[in-house]
């Protein structure tokens, strides 16, 4: 492979990893907990900003050409972790305002408003966020100590991104399979029934919102450490719809579906349009791309609202433990020794 191709593919790998992380977070909020999180991209932007200002030195560095807060120049893993923490921390007040007493479609609208307003604040706040120009020259993590060539560093970062995805997946999967995740799904499916069984509806929603926010923040941190720049215009509210398209097309509530959705929508679809020759005026292809995303939503909601990979009906043993794939398969094959052990999802 030529160096150029290697750069291209490794960059796509990082983007895919970042999008998969973000899609899982949104899947937790939307798929598992049933929250129409229209401000999701805000958590990613907040995480990205956090990672940026913690990796950058004091703002007087680089000739003091950009304004921002903090500037701690922290060593590598700390800015990323902080990005996740801030993603969760920012989602809690937003969740407290919107999730407690509003009915679900009001929540959606309030969250959309939050997202739009946040962009306008960030763009206008020159001292805090350096305005529309955003931040640049964010140092790449470990670049000095690793001493890799530029291409190898790209591959290193891609591998690192996938490793983060793997670790997050283990935690996230445990969480959604645990009674906690079951309770979240119960709230999604019938909040009154869940409440009558003593589940704390608002608390569970807020928790799903915060964990999803942390995952978004982490993905934003990874992205900003990789591209080395941050600007409010990269996280406008329509970007949430791209991730939502990922979930709806891949399969709401299905983690594998989220991966497939990422490979289809932001990767395959967005990269394919890159090769369309620039027809018409500037920005025409972009506009057509958004039209296509809108049509994709409509087509999928019409023909396959459950997505390519629908949410799997989870099976549990009589004592409430998740049934292993093996038992589920055996049952499907008809040799159902374990049949009597199998229950449908018990009321959480």
């Amino acid at each position: 492979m030529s160096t150029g191709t290697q750069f291209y593919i490794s960059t796509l790998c990082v983007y895919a990893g970042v999008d998969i992380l973000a899609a899982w977070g949104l899947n937790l909020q939307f798929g598992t907990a049933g929250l129409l999180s229209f401000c999701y991209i805000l958590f990613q932007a907040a995480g990205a900003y956090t990672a940026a200002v913690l990796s950058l030195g004091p703002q007087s560095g680089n000739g003091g050409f950009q304004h921002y807060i903090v500037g701690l120049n922290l060593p590598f893993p700390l800015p990323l972790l902080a990005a996740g923490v801030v993603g969760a921390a920012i989602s809690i007040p937003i969740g407290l305002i919107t999730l407690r007493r509003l009915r679900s479609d009001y929540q959606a609208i309030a969250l959309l408003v939050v997202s739009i307003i946040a962009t306008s604040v960030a763009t206008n706040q020159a001292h805090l966020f350096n305005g529309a120009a955003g931040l640049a020259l964010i140092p790449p993590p470990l670049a000095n100590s690793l001493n890799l060539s530029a291409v190898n560093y790209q591959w290193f970062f891609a591998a690192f991104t996938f490793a983060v995805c793997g670790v997050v997946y283990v935690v996230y999967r445990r969480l959604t399979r645990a009674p906690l995740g079951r309770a979240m799904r119960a709230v999604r499916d019938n909040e009154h029934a869940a409440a009558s069984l003593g589940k704390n509806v608002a608390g569970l929603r807020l928790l799903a919102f915060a964990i999803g926010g942390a995952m978004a923040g982490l993905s934003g941190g990874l992205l900003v450490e990789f591209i080395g720049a941050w600007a409010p215009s990269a996280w406008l509210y329509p970007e949430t719809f791209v991730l939502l398209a990922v979930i709806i097309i891949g399969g709401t509530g299905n983690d594998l579906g989220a991966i497939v959705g990422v490979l289809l929508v932001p990767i395959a679809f967005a990269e394919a349009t890159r090769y369309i020759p620039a027809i018409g005026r500037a920005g025409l292809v972009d506009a057509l791309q958004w039209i296509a995303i809108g049509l994709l939503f409509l087509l999928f909601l019409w023909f396959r609202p459950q997505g390519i990979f629908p949410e799997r009906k989870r099976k549990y043993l009589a004592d409430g433990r998740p049934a292993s794939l093996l038992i589920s398969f055996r049952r499907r094959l008809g040799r159902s020794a374990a049949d009597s052990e199998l229950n449908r999802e018990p009321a959480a």
Partner: protein
Amino acid sequence: MSLLGPSIGFGLVTASILALAAVGFTIQFGVTNVLNLAYGEVMGAAGFIALLVNKAGVSIWICLVIGAMFGAASSYALNRAILVPYIRRGTRLFGMVIVTVAVGLVIENTILAIGGPTFFSYKLPHQSTFHVGSLIFTGFQVAIIGLAVVCMIVVHGVLRYTKLGIAMRATSAENSLARSCGIRTERIIDIAWLISGTMCGLAGVTLFINTATFTSATANEFLVVIVAAAVLGGVGHAYGAMLGALVLGLTTEISAAYIDPAYKNVTAFVILVIVLLVRPQGILAEIATQRELAT
């Protein structure tokens, strides 16, 4: 004092446009329970249709009427051709919100693809200014305020004193009960979309007249304030939306004069957050409960 006068003037004009838009938004939501996030884009489309006609040399007032008619027709078509089939197919609240978002994306970007990412403006005749006390208005601003006041009175009259209005309020309160009382709710819903669309079109054209220059995204950006006004008054309540529009129109413009024009929408947001915290059901409404979608 020197700032307060003009900013109250601007505030009244903004409140008028906002009232047109928010009342249209809220009437449709109240009757059908479908949260139409494509509302801003339909407004924009109406404004751009008016621009096309205006470019052909037609007076802006006729363009306003054409914009309103387009708004009504396209809202009716949106409901009949897209939303109702999806509801019949079993798409529920969340799905419907996403459907309207998708329709909005398609409309806005179609305008962007055809018109291009440039600024547009109407050809307006020169207007003399009016002085009312310390307030100064252009002829257009007076016309916009007048139009909004007339529309609000008409909406009030229709909702309060006509059979149609009673039927609409009944459908809004309890669709299935209204139906079993012999109200043809399907027709009422069509009419609600037509009324809402008319006001949406009027709001789109007046918004573009008032902002002087506009892009394909201008109307959609205004949706935040529309929604804030509707939520402020309690979504689905026409009088609440009027009040919300007045409050938000005045506060955004006055804060623009005294704080920073860039934070106009932020003020709207702060008010919205306070209302959501204190009275999530809005100023005038009782607690909004989850209802079924009406077709």
